[in-house]
Each structure stands twice: as structure tokens, then as C-alpha cells.
């Protein structure tokens, strides 16, 4: 599904990712953990194709295609979804309108038929109910005036409606109370169908308690320094990242 090989990424001519390699198979959920400044968010932005995140060497293959060469909207249509750590506000743009425009833009790019208003509402209402979000949210402007938790849950609603092949969740757990965390985790688990793959970027192990990752990777100094099973997350929780920083220094 996703093959990242020896990836080097610079932002403002400063190298952040320094030879990162990662393979995520179909249907797998991988957790990427690491201390602040290790390059976690850079990985997410690079996969989604943000400008200013320049791939200087290495490769990213997604579903057999070269992701680096694709525009962000092409990546979205191909099935890549990034849940933002800080979802962006778009004043004046109705949340439902935005999501339907996005869905139909993707479908159009894939040569599929557009979804009409009635069917769209059905899809989005289900997801809203599952995340215990009020329907009035649809009529509000995208993320404007949303609480931190609402913004994060809204990302999961978008993911559920857009049905990506690969979802990258960038610290979706940060700033959530325990109830919201469970809702978000349930939302993710519902989408685990044996085919869809996930990269869950997080600082803490607590979200992983609900997700049971196939693999856990530790990112430090712009590279994966350690990989293992779910037990690695627990070890990091108790030991902290201190030893890694000393090692990579």
C-alpha cells in the first residue's frame, strides 16, 4: 500500500526527515511515535503533498504510484487522507457544502458519478451520529467556532465520508478528553475493514490502547529508529523518549 524509502525532506532548506523508510501493508494500522520535533507532522504533511515540504531524495510509492509527483488533490482522489493536527477554519463556507464539494471533486477525478444532496446527507448523518456530533454542525462554517474536540471529531467525520485507502492521523488524540478519545478511536476502528491502511501519528500511547496497532515505529531525528509490536508503545510510555534523544544526539 505505502512504501517510503530513504526519504529526505527539507522545509525552508532545513532538512527535517533524514532517510525515513516505512512500509505499511494493506489493511494495516501503524503507529508512528516520537518526541516533539522528531519530524512526525512533517511526515504527515509530506504524504499529503504540502508545498514547502520538499522531497530532496528518496521515494514514496502509494498503491504502485509515485506519490511525490502528485498534486495534493490528486493524492486525495487516489485515496490519501490526512487528519490535521490543527484543522483549518474556512469562514463563510458551510461545513456540509465543503465536504460534499470535496467528495464530488474526488469522485469526478476518479471518473465516478457525483453524489446527490439526499444521499450525501444520509452518509454524513450516519457519521455524525456515530461520533455523537450535532447535525447543526453541518450548517456552520468549516471548523469556525468549533471547540478543539469538535474540530478533531469533524476530521473523523470527513474521513468516514471520503472513505480513503490510506488515512494519516496527525495527533488526532491531542487535546481530547477521554470520552472524545474513545469516540475518535471507535470511528477509526469502524473504518478498519482489512483493506484500508492507517498511519497514526501520536505522542502518547493512550489512543493506541483502543486501536491495537499492527506495528509501532519510533521516529527520532528524522528517521525511524526502532520498530516493534504494540508492546513498544507501552515501553515508550514508561521509559519516555529521553534515551532516544541522547542516542541520536
Amino acid at each position, binding site marked *: 500500500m505505502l512504501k517510503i524509502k530513504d526519504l529526505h525532506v527539507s522545509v525552508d532548506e532545513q532538512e527535517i526527515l533524514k532517510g525515513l523508510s516505512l512500509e505499511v501493508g494493506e489493511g494495516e494500522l501503524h503507529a508512528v511515535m516520537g518526541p516533539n520535533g522528531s519530524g512526525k507532522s512533517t511526515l504527515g504533511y509530506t504524504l499529503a503533498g504540502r508545498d514547502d515540504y520538499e522531497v530532496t531524495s528518496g521515494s514514496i510509492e502509494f498503491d504502485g504510484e509515485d506519490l511525490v509527483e502528485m498534486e*495534493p488533490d490528486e493524492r486525495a482522489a487516489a485515496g490519501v487522507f490526512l487528519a490535521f493536527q490543527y484543522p483549518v*477554519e*474556512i469562514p463563510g*463556507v458551510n461545513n456540509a457544502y*465543503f465536504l460534499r464539494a470535496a467528495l464530488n471533486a474526488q469522485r469526478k477525478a476518479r471518473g465516478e458519478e457525483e453524489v446527490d444532496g439526499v444521499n450525501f446527507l444520509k452518509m454524513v448523518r450516519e457519521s455524525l451520529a456515530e461520533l455523537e456530533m450535532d447535525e447543526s454542525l453541518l450548517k456552520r462554517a468549516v471548523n469556525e467556532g468549533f471547540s478543539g474536540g469538535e474540530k478533531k471529531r469533524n476530521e473523523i467525520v470527513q474521513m468516514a465520508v*471520503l472513505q480513503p485507502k490510506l488515512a494519516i492521523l496527525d495527533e488526532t488524540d491531542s487535546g481530547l478528553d477521554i470520552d472524545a478519545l474513545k469516540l475518535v478511536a471507535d470511528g477509526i476502528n469502524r473504518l478498519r475493514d482489512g483493506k484500508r491502511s492507517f498511519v497514526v501519528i501520536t505522542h502518547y500511547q493512550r489512543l493506541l490502547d483502543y486501536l491495537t496497532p499492527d506495528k509501532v515505529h519510533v521516529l527520532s531525528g528524522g528517521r525511524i529508529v526502532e520498530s516493534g509490536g504494540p508492546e513498544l508503545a507501552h515501553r515508550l510510555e514508561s521509559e519516555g523518549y529521553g534515551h532516544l534523544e541522547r542516542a541520536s544526539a
Partner: protein
Amino acid sequence: MSQTVEQVQGVIQKRYAAGFTTDIESDMIRPGLDEEIIAMISAKKEEPEWMLEWRLKAYRHWLTMKTPNWAHLNIPAIDFQALHYYASPKQKNRPQSLDEVDPKLLETFDRLGVPLHERARLAGVAVDAVFDSVSVGTTFQKELKEAGVIFCSMSEALQEHPDLVREYIGSVVPHTDNFFAALNSAVFSDGSFVYIPKDTVCPMELSTYFRINARDTGQFERTLIIAEPGSKVSYLEGCTAPMRDENQLHAAVVELVALEKAQIKYSTVQNWYPGDENGKGGIYNFVTKRGDCRGDDSRISWTQVETGSAITWKYPSCIMRGERSAGEFYSVALTHNHQQADTGTKMIHLGKDSTSKIISKGISAGRSNNSYRGLVRVAKKATNVRNYTQCDSLLIGKTCGAHTFPYIEAANASAKVEHEATTSRIGEDQLFYCRSRGLDEEEAVALIVDGFCKEVFKELPMEFAVEAKALLEISLEGSVG
């Protein structure tokens, strides 16, 4: 500088769908401006004697005036003697009905999406179509007449309802008001006339579509709307012109009179040819629009979406003369390439307890300059006046400019005047967020801009809101790379 910003400001190419020319013979008065020309215009329109006198008075006053230079605009000198002040499509006789109108003209308006013939008429919207200096035809006249509403061209009004015209013309915008208003008063050729009788709600939207076609011609229309006590009307105007290398002058005057408890809503979607990407050609849009809330509890609302013109100089204003009267101004002004806009409003509060609201959204791209200029004046005797002004600017790229010039003159201490202003650059975060969800760059910019303009668009009548949104999208086409 990031890649996105470069792309955004990079290739700015506007596709102007209304840029075609209609090949039709024109009946033109020789170029130049003098008393003889004015007499010729008046004679062509078979006007009453007092109208000619009024025109000449305006002309003599205009000769003493200078082009205004206080706006944040760079206006090249205009040779007023080189212009034609009257051009009309040649027709054997004045058409008595739309069936007699030259098919080429009907086709022109068809192409512009304003069908005039019976079968394709816009449902629920009566249209007066003005081609160069004359009105080509007005739809739904019969239906309106039954409601007692008069909706016709100014020329026709001067023939059929001269007393009404004489009573109100120049009563809101006097011929001495400003340079372009004086010029218009001297040479105005056509425009629309609307009269809504007492306690009548106009049964349909009224609209005028202005089209400049002839070369080296100025368009000087004059519109007058009178709303008698307790009446209500919504009026829309649209405008386009062919793409030409030379600049053309459009100097209109619009006067609105709202008597006691009357309501006038006036909406404009202005899409004059803006010139090419190097700033060559385009319309100079120098317009004086003013509404007089003459009666108590009257209300006048201006909504404008300005996307065209090389230079826009326009301040639709309200005079709140009546007690508890209300004025509103909602504006979206988009400039790009080398376009310049200095636009805003004046809210003059004379009546007690009068209110006004100003919502202005400026969008600048390319090398354009976009200024908001607004005056809120409260007269000494006007107690408990309230004004709210919100003025937002959105920048696309780094070579454009947005400027805000608010003026507040409150002579009564009880006035509450609020002013809020913001300027923001179209966010890379917003663009990337939209794109990561599957929208391409142009869709993303259109969506963000649409959201930015929402408060104004929702004031437009339904049909126009859709058109305005589409127009903005076309205007932004190519503003991202």
C-alpha cells in the same frame, strides 16, 4: 516566497465571456461635446424643452469643474472631445414591440443570458435592455401596468410621464454634485425609470441590462426609481461590454427616492470589460448612485458585486432624511491584473433614530489596487443614530494592494458608530486544507472567496446570487497557477 503564493499571483488570466461585438450599424452623433451636440441628443429623443434647458445648465456648470483626483486611483487624462455621446443601433422606426426589434440585438442579449423574447423570458424578472445609448425593449410591461407599476426607459418616461420625471430628476443627485454627475446630466441618453405607486409591492423583480457595443462611445445612462409611501421594489442591474484596446467611459447616475415606509433594494452585478492582463483597454466606470430615504421609516439597500471595469469610482450612498429610516450597503469588489477600484459608500444621517449598515468585502489579486472609502456623517439634530461598518480585505498574492479610508463625522453625541476592519491574505493553510480534501487549486480559491463574500451574496436575489458566484469564479480563473 512559497510556491503557492507564486502560483497564486503568477498567471492571472481572465476569460471574459461577454467580450464579443455585435455587428450592427450605429446611428452616431459626431464626436465631441458642445451645446449643439446636447441639443442634438435632446432632439433625437424628442424631449420637452425644460429637459434641454436642464441639460444645458448642467453642461455650463460642468465646464467650470475639474476631474476629481482625491481617489486612490491613477486615472489617465480623458479627451472628452474625442468621445461619441450618442450611439444607437440603426432602426427604421422606433420599435413598438419586441417583435419589431432587430434580431441581431435580441441575439446579443440572448448570448448574454438575458433573453428578451416571449418564450425565453426570465421567469419573474422584468428586463429593460439598454444597448449603447438607447433602450432596446422592456419585457412584462403589460403585467406591470396592471399593478400600476411604471417600468420603462427614461426616454419613454420623458414622453409618457414628463411631470414625474421633472419632479424627481436631479432631486437626489443635483447636476452640480460632481464632475461626472454634471457630465451625465448634460449628455445622458437612456436608462430606466421606475415608479411604484402607494402601498404597492412590485409583483416581480425589475432589472436593467446595460450593454456598451459601439467603439469610442461613452455610456451615460440615468436611472430614477420612485417608491411611493408603503411601496416596495427590488431592482437589479447587470452590465457588460466587448473587449477593446481603448478605454471606454461609463458615467451613470442613479437616483432612488423612498417615501414614507417605502423600501427599495437595488442590486448590481457589474462586469464591464476590465482590460487585458497588461492593463490595456477596459471600461472607466465613474458612477454616482444615491438613495434618498425621504420618508419616515423608509429603507434603501444597495448590494453590489463589482468584478469588471479597468477603473471603478463608485460610492452608492444613502441619505437617511426620514426618522427611523435605514440605509444599507453590501459590497463585493474584486480587482486583479491592473484593475483599480476606489469604491464604498456615504451614509448621511439627517433623521432621528436612523440606522445604517455597511458590509464591504474587497478582494485583490495580481497587480490591482482595491480601496474602500466610506463616510458616515451624523447631522447635529439627528439623535440616536446607529451605524455599523465592517470592512474586510482579502489579498491574493503579494503584488496587489488593499486600502481602507473610513471617514466618520458625528455632530451629535448620541450617535453610535462602530467600525471593524480586517485585512488577510488568502491562507496557505486554507488552500492546502481544501486541496488535501480533493479540491483543485482554483476550486479551493473559489470556495474560500465565496465564503469570504457570503454575507454580501446572501443579500442578492436568488438568480443573481448564483450569477455573482459564477462570475467571481470566472474572474478568479487563472489567478492560481
